[in-house]
């Protein structure tokens, strides 16, 4: 598993930056031949991770800092979204659909991340923040070429 390329962004916890994050990662990921459907899935997963950081991690405060790192290895794309916000008290519950108590939210963020990526790892410490690591295999033909 060799490193091919890496991108690192630091974003303020502004709702408008959700779009910036997913578009930046999709542009970065298009360096390898993911199909349109794969890229759409990556965009949704990034959107969910960054939205979670803004709404849950920083509770909609606009001055939080979100770190976004995308790394292309020879076999996979890895995306790490990190905030230093509130953290998640109960990770197991957060992974359940409809886990949100807010009637305007579906609690589907982690469900979508798990559905659209091959691997999702979450490390969270209450009061310290949350790190979400998303991994998606590269298309087979790209892996074969490298």
């Amino acid at each position, binding site marked *: 598993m060799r490193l091919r390329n890496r991108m690192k962004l630091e974003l303020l916890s502004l709702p408008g930056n*959700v779009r910036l994050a997913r578009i930046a990662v999709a542009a970065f990921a298009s360096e390898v031949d993911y199909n349109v459907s794969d890229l759409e899935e990556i965009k949704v997963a990034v959107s969910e991770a960054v*939205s979670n950081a803004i709404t849950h991690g920083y509770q909609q405060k606009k001055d939080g800092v979100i770190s976004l790192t995308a790394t292309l290895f020879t076999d996979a794309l890895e995306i790490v979204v990190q905030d230093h916000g509130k953290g998640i008290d109960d990770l197991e519950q957060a992974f359940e659909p409809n886990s949100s108590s807010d009637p305007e939210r*579906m609690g589907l963020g982690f469900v979508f991340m798990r559905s659209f990526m091959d691997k999702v790892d979450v490390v969270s410490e209450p009061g310290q923040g949350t790190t979400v690591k998303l991994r998606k295999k590269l298309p087979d033909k790209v892996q074969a070429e490298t």
Partner: protein
Amino acid sequence: MGLNLKRLGNIMLIEVCGEFDLSAADYCRQEIDQKIRAEGIKDILFDLEKVAFIDSSGLGVILGRYRKAKENGGRMAISNANPRITKILELSGITRLIPVYPTTSQALRFLGRGVG
């Protein structure tokens, strides 16, 4: 992101254009609720033809409006979602609550209003 709200008889037709995510959610929620209150409308149709992207924040707006419509004795339908958006709707489970139609005219028929 654009939002068009049109009254068609007793139905509020909501056309969302562009990317339906966290940055659009609050604005959409406020505008739609205000218009529905002002017009006293119960039934809602979300036309997603011009939605290029949706995530759980956008879905939350739809679900929230569905819950309010239901509380008020109204109904809701969704129309014109492209295959990518339809996949997200299905994965979310929203299609088990809200009927999804390929065209606006079919959705309007479900909501009790024919075309023309």
